[in-house]
């Protein structure tokens, strides 16, 4: 993804606390488990089992999951569009084994 910056994504992930619900590569604590582990996420075909795993879809999903996938159990998170892109870049950069 052009211009998206995984390092800034990591900062945003810390600021909003995604790790309270997800195990995320590169984040040692916390490692909540109410959401699925995001290790190996880049190799996954679908987001939440239903959406195609593409950068634009992921960017929309991490920012406002209920609007992207009605009925999902993942809440909306306070991220700007740019931050959401950075976060998606981080998940793609760290998520492949």
């Amino acid at each position, binding site marked *: 993804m052009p211009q998206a910056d995984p390092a800034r994504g*990591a900062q945003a992930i810390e600021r909003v*606390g995604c790790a*309270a619900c997800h195990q995320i590569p590169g984040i040692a604590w*916390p490692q*909540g*488990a*109410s959401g699925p582990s995001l290790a190996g996420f880049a190799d996954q075909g679908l987001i939440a089992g239903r959406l195609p795993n593409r950068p634009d879809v992921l960017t929309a999903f991490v920012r406002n999951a209920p609007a992207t996938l009605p009925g*999902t159990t993942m809440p909306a998170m306070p991220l700007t569009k740019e931050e959401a892109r950075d976060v998606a870049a981080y998940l793609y*950069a760290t998520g492949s084994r």
Partner: protein
Amino acid sequence: MQPAAANTGPGWPASIFDPAGPYAGSITTLSWLLLAMAAGVFLVVLVALWVALFGKHRLQKRLGGTRTIWIGGIIFPVIVLSGLLVYGLSLTRNLAEPVPANAMRVRITGEMWWWRVAYLDARGQPVNIDANELHIPVGQPVVLELESSDVIHSFWVPQLSGKLDMIPGRRNILPIQADRPGTYGGQCAEYCGGPHALMGFVVIAHEPAQYHAIMAARRTPRQQVAGRGEQLFRSTGCAACHRIAGTDANGIAGPDLSHVGSRSSLGAGILPNNRGTLIGWIGDSQSIKPGNRMPAYKMLPAQDLAAIATYLEAQK
């Protein structure tokens, strides 16, 4: 990829070699002295060992003589250890001195696995109830009344004072002081069951003016927030365990949430307080702090969790 980041509570990890006030200062000085002396003795023993193994025969004979035993084994330790005892006791005397009668007082009660906080007035009556976090003004001693309502805990904020046990049925007095503003992490220092290692604490020291402003704001009656979050807080049973001042939520089994929106940490000092950690804690605190006494709310839909979080964020 960057190194593993830990999204820990504020003030962590707490340094034990960076005192921020006189009570912690004397303990740190003593610790350094003990370390230096231990290092010196260790060095002497290594040299003696070297001599015993590879040294000149004449030196070896001396080392094995009765005189060495008398001097090195008896006279030297008696003098050094007696001196150390006297010096150590006088150095940390400030911890045992009677505390000033007009000092600010706060009662902190250990719970499995969090802390009740009650700011007291001059007559010892609670004027403000909080949990897991303590605000203090800098530059003056603050007297803590340490109690426990279940098992033995130990209160320890390394940069502000020594550690002291919280014993059921007793009230132990611990003075703390911060001489510079900052956030200081603490930790329960006596094993108290399951999530003991995740029983942290946060002290925030402010300039006196700012401290008084915070406390004054807490005393003014707050605008009540009505809405879905508030309804859910009652209908899902949160209010049975949690108190929010000025509402009919008055449970006492869990931490007071009257000021949770301005808390810097969650889960007893173990998480930063933000949107994700707040919703994540409410939805499934058991996956973050296994064994803690708050049930998981996995059945609540994301929108409900978000509404409750919005309600709690407004509780400054």
